[in-house]
């Protein structure tokens, strides 16, 4: 008994052509030629979106000049933050809670992906000779660059996310070149690595709150640089592991 899944009117965002394909039954989706929205609806949609563009453009053009912003406030407190690059200071000190939640989002995506199904392997086609040899050349370099990016984040653009992306890239490259992780490494080690970022960050943050005169996620000024580096290291490993595992697409 088919349930009546009622869709909205022409402003249906999911866009499948309702009237056309509503009653037809099915071959594989790729083989079925699908007429999408009729031309009139598309034109109307285009006009509506053009109006939206103009409204937003007007909003942007009306923004005040000189711009109100927080660069002065950040610059004033930069010395107490433990790093000398303002973006890193915002990410890991002034708005550290956002970064903690962001690491949690990444972990949540991993847990969600693992809950859906098992990893289906990276093999599209078997890797050619170039791809098989590429990791031997690139992976050590990538590790080096990742380490540099992590260190440089304190005074230049860089930091945990950039370095973590590189590590994730290493995982993807290994996967594509036919060298996936051995079975023993796919279970517990990946879980531990994925948890490490959030755990270290939350533990240090809560610990900072437990100190006398301290607040949650408040790094004491003398220790700020070391604490930030510790958090970034754990975060980098976590992000790399999670990104590579997301590419694998399921639980091991």
């Amino acid at each position, binding site marked *: 008994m088919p349930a009546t*899944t*009622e869709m*909205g009117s022409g402003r249906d965002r999911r866009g499948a052509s309702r009237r056309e394909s509503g009653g037809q039954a099915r071959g594989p989706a790729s083989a079925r030629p699908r007429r999408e929205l009729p031309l009139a609806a598309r034109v109307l949609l285009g006009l509506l979106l053009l109006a939206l563009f103009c409204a*937003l453009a007007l909003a942007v053009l009306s923004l005040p000049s000189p711009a109100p912003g927080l660069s002065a406030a950040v610059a004033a407190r930069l010395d107490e933050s433990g790093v000398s690059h303002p973006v890193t200071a915002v990410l890991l000190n002034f708005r550290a*809670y956002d970064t903690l939640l962001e690491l949690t989002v990444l972990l949540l995506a991993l847990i969600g992906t693992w809950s859906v199904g098992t990893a289906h392997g990276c093999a599209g086609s078997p890797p050619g000779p170039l791809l098989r040899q590429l990791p031997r050349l690139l992976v050590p370099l990538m590790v080096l660059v990742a380490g540099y990016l992590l260190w440089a984040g304190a005074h230049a653009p860089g930091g945990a996310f950039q370095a973590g992306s590189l590590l994730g890239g290493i995982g993807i490259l290994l996967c594509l070149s036919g060298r996936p992780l051995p079975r023993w490494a796919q279970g517990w080690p990946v*879980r531990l690595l994925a948890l490490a970022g959030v755990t270290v960050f939350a533990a240090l943050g809560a610990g900072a709150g437990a100190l006398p005169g301290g*607040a*949650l996620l408040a790094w004491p000024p003398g220790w700020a640089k070391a604490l930030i580096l510790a958090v970034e290291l754990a975060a980098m490993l976590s992000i790399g592991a999670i990104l590579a595992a997301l590419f694998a697409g399921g639980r091991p």
Partner: protein
Amino acid sequence: MRWDPGGLDWTLAVVFLPLAGALLCFLVPRRAAPVGLGAAVLTAAATFGLTLAVLADGVQRTALGGWAAPLGILWRADELSVALMAMTATVGVAVSFYAGAYFRDEHTERAFFWPLWLLLWMALNALFLSADLFNLYVTLELVGFAAASLTALGGNAAALAGAVRYLMVSVLGSLSYLLGVALVYHACGTVDITLAATRMGDAPGAAMHAATGAIIAGLLLKTALFPLHFWLPPAHGSAPAPVSALLSALVIKASFYLLLRLWLDMLGGGRWLAELLGVLGAAAVIWGSLLALRQTRLKLLIAYSTVAQVGYLFIAFPLSLAGNGAAWTGALYLALAHGLAKAAMFLSAGSLIRFGGHDRFAELDRPVPRLPLTLTAFTLAGVSIMGLPPSGGFIGKWLLLESAFRQGRYGLAAVVLLGGVLAAAYVFKVVGHAFTPGPREHRGLRVPAVMEWSALLLAVGAILLGLGLPLLRPLLQVGPESSGAGSAAAVGAWG
């Protein structure tokens, strides 16, 4: 036991306890159920501690990292947030016990349900506490991801399609919200709600109208207000029963809470916008109730009922233009009562499905004599949904009706009353079939007692909510004068 009234400790606990529980559950999947249950009980206890602290000492503000706004992020626990956190805790504990029994035989689903659910709870608490627009964006995304992953736990095609649609809608809504936040930041120079509210008056009108539109549109999409409700029935109707309870009772309220908070503190008061929301709410009530009547599957019927109930919440917007807070109190009462009642309904639906193997309620074979507690739970929950006294739903609707009659808004009053009649129709449709034999004799599978009792306790809670009006009224006084938009300096700022 001496309660520590320090706001920091309780607010820290309500966010970090479920987080720690989720991390542990992910680390040790075999013990996920007991660890998860323990974390749930602890988090609920911390939530009630925070509620008492707020009732005793007033608004609790925390500057995270010791940095005051606008540089840092603020937590603010006031009556409104605490009321919703308490509802989350109540429903959460009941659903946790239910889920412990529901997933007992499914290893994979059990292993992943607990970390996902605890992270959802953490995200909800973080959302209710936060007073920073961008931080709220991250918590909204957290809630969306967790909810979508939980929806997909069923594993079948309907659940997966519902989850994909849900996640896409969630991302789209968050993106629209983020667009609004970007415009607010670049016009006002801050993302702190209190500060932005004071600066919005001087900001250019076009940018502020665009920001308001973007933020409200995103949150309406997430709250599934007609006509943006298309994603809700497939998602709530095909998720596992405890997940459906969480989605309808809690997740929907999170985006509604945010909309209400921003409306009161920052964006609101626009007359035509409030009227538009009222019209859409009225349409949602009628449309959702009519479609619920047409359903043959129990969970889809309950999901369409959610679409209708969300409409009532938005009818309060035009009613509040007159200035007194009675309409808001009514809407909040409805939100809390709906949380308890809808969760009870979905949990009892899950028990019925476990009993009969399917959810076509017309074909269930005499569940009443064999599952008396479950049917009692469903009926009591239905009483609150219909708005019969003495339930919480009745109080909420009564406050809305009183406000409507006092302002002469007879159209809105008629919609509220008609919605109650239609709700009675679809509730009794289900209950009626529950007394009759089905087309085939069916032995019926055993339903664990904890599943029946958790649904019943929630339903009784929805009824008790109505009786507790004098106790709860101070918690639910909402309005421009009590929205907590105080001075910009945050307590506890070392920065």
